[in-house]
């Protein structure tokens, strides 16, 4: 056999292998790929139901007060909060029977008088205060807890919450964000619940291997025995829930296809086509549900005099130079759309009038060039800091291409999270000119003030994160967040001024879908689009 023949044979075999690997043959189902790993063991008997779910990251520790976006799915399995956001964005009480506003900034929170954690420790008003203290000490909830002036136990089951500078949405955020634990369980854990975590939910952690899997089992001693009063997030229809760690979203998409897992916490829009058609109809064997996640991609400008974006004309030139519709279509494969303001339709206080797609910095190269001329742009490099989340690198790359087309020199600054944060909070205002980021919040107003990084200049020595010192913006901001002044009008006034000054620019939002395999007959999601495993309806194997 001569060399050419051998080469041809080898290349043909390689091509065959690649084609076979890429083929759409669905002849095998999940059962064929049975796994021996405890993480994917879905066997059950006598109606015992299990769910195997995948997430990209391990929580590292199971503390109720850690930081990091994706750890919330693990926290939700163990811990309850005073209230929670439903799929529809409504507030649903969990540990509270009720709450009332007794005077301006003062609230009474009434607890059920029979709450206990999975270890049997009773949960009372003092535990609420303890939980808030621990959350505050962690530093991870500074913006949410900032308005709290004091907390006092009126009796065993009533907490008086007093707020200073109460902002619209503050109470909701406070009630829905802080995990509750009993002081007794915290002390008994001996490790601040890093590994020995105990909550009041109907599930307890029974097994885990770091960076591999964690298994939760229904305890059958859940404190809320009246099923009609069980909050959606605290339902326990499934006997055992296992979260496995799959680092790569493509790999987790395959694992859903093979049936090794029932749901992946993160599914890239590139993989939506595996589970549903373009109209959003799930293929046989899958469940598809659009989530109310209000994640929005946007740009945050640096208004420091040390930045090329200090000039409003420069900021506007950048906005006009970008075709947000094209970016949305390309990056999110038809599931994205440009936004008509710095708002997301899923915000609680959203009204359609807030968006003006035809006039909101509509893609216009000529206008971009006009503003560039007004800004006196002389070819200086615009530094784009790219948040290391979601599809921001892809969005930023397209932005760079659009800016390049109108003659704006750009440099992309892509870093891992540590370096990113280090540059983001840099004090001189010289490091970046605008940030491309993806922001998400559970409610509208709370979201708005949080993404503006508190323009009241209280957080940073150098003013707001964007180096803005603008009294008019500050006034409008305070009117918008004021608990007595917040209204659609004040929100729109604020947004109008924001756009006039072009401090922030909304790029796009997208339809975020969640999927589940055939075992799940009813997929339940919360207000952030995260699965509520216990609320799902699952077939026994």
């Amino acid at each position: 056999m001569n060399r050419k023949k051998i080469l041809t044979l080898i290349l043909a075999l390689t091509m065959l292998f690649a084609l076979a690997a890429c083929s759409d043959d669905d002849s095998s189902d999940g059962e064929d790929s049975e796994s021996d790993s405890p993480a994917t063991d879905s066997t059950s008997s006598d109606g015992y139901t299990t769910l195997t779910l995948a997430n990209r990251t391990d929580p590292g520790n199971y503390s109720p007060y850690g930081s990091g976006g994706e750890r919330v799915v693990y926290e939700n399995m163990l811990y309850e909060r005073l209230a929670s956001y439903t799929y529809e964005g409504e507030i649903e009480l969990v540990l509270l029977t009720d709450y009332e506003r007794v005077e301006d900034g003062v609230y009474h929170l009434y607890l059920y008088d029979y709450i206990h954690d999975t270890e049997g420790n009773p949960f009372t008003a003092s535990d609420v205060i303890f939980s808030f203290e621990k959350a505050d000490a962690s530093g991870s909830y500074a913006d949410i807890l900032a308005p709290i002036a004091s907390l006092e136990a009126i009796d065993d089951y009533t907490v008086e919450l007093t707020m200073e500078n109460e902002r619209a949405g503050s109470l909701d955020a406070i009630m829905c964000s802080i995990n509750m634990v009993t002081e007794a369980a915290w002390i008994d854990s001996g490790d601040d619940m890093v590994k020995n975590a105990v909550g009041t939910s109907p599930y307890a952690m029974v097994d885990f291997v770091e960076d591999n899997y964690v298994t939760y089992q229904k305890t059958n001693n859940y404190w809320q025995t009246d099923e009609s009063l069980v909050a959606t997030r605290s339902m326990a229809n499934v006997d055992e829930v296992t979260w496995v760690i799959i680092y790569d979203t493509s790999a987790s998409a395959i694992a859903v296809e093979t049936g090794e897992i029932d749901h992946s916490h993160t599914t890239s829009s590139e993989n939506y086509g595996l589970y549903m058609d373009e109209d959003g109809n799930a293929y046989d064997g899958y469940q598809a549900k659009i989530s109310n996640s209000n994640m929005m991609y946007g740009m945050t400008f640096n208004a420091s005099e040390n930045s090329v974006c200090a000039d409003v004309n420069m900021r506007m030139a950048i906005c006009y130079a970008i075709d947000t519709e094209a970016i949305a279509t390309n990056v999110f494969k038809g599931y994205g759309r440009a936004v008509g303001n710095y708002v997301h339709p899923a915000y609680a206080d959203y009204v359609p009038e807030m968006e003006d797609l035809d006039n909101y910095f509509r893609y216009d190269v000529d206008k971009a060039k006009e503003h560039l001329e007004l800004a006196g742009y002389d070819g200086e490099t615009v530094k784009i800091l790219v948040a290391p989340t979601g599809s921001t690198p892809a969005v930023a790359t397209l932005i760079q291409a659009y800016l390049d087309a109108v003659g704006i020199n750009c440099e992309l600054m892509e870093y891992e999270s540590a370096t990113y944060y280090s540059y983001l909070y840099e004090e001189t205002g010289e490091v970046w000119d605008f940030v491309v980021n993806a922001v998400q919040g559970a409610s509208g107003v709370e979201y708005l003030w949080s993404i503006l990084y508190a323009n009241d200049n209280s957080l940073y020595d150098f003013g707001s994160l964007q180096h803005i010192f603008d009294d008019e913006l500050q006034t409008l901001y305070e009117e918008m967040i004021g608990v007595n002044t917040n209204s659609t009008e004040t929100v729109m006034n604020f947004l109008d001024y924001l756009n006039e000054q072009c401090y922030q620019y909304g790029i796009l939002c997208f339809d975020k879908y969640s999927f589940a395999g055939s075992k799940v007959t009813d997929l339940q999601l919360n207000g952030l689009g995260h699965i509520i495993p216990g609320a799902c309806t699952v077939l026994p194997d």
Partner: protein
Amino acid sequence: MIIPVILGVAVLIFTIMYFTPGDAARVMLADNATQAQVEALREDMGLNDSYIVQLLRFLKQMFIDFDLGTSYINQTSVMSDILMRLPRTAILAGMCMLMQIIVAFPLGITAAVHQNKWQDQLCTIIVMIGQAIPNFWLALMMILLFSNTLGWLPSFGVGSWRHWIMPIIAASIGGVSTITRQTRSQMLEVIRSDYVVTARAKGVSERSIRYRHALPNTLIPVITGMGTAFGTALGGSVVIETAFSIPGVGKYMVDGIANRDLPVIRGGVVFLAILFCLVILIIDVLYAFIDPRVKAQYEGQQKRRVKTSA
């Protein structure tokens, strides 16, 4: 040499991380914390101390207290985290080395003894393809074929021997190709040596020449390469660990770097440096078993020392 090397590594990694941008306190508190809280945490963590103070504290902790530290993010011991992950990485690295022995050696020897014949050409083509295929591509293709399409093997995680088949193949293909080429070139050099010609002239069988005379002499540089590769692999094959979701040392270290988890990065690097030095030491010892000349050299030195002292 091991002690200065490890000390050097410790100082180097500390210095690099000290001057690398990225605030561990900010990462720990994410973007919700006030500047005051970040500052307080930095003070608490000792990050505001001078370079010298932090370096001395680090070296004391490493080499006097024998403590790799506690992860900022996980709040767990770095040593226990690494030891928990090391067996998985060691399985991957060990099996890759085994693949090199059982596949690369025979291939390399076959190619050398059949130089320029079809067997040699076939080996060369296989080796070139093996080196050209990126391991992440191979990993994804194998997942698509064997997990998704055929449903034969699990696509992620650890747990049974079936979980390891694809990662080992994907991780070892590059190393097998390299060792095959090394074995071939070394073997070619050795079988042209005078002592091989002499052995042939004395009527020693070709098989005996290959395996008893030529092979041991071929092995020395090849084993050096394999040992170094094994030591490096113990540091983790991040790509393969990520593709197959294997919770190994590599992924742990990369996550530590992304989160600016300084104890994980520093402790992990020092631990792996020690491990690497030990592997190199074992290779040196192996030389003595494989090559009688090395053994004789050591024995000769010992005899000279005894003579001098007498």
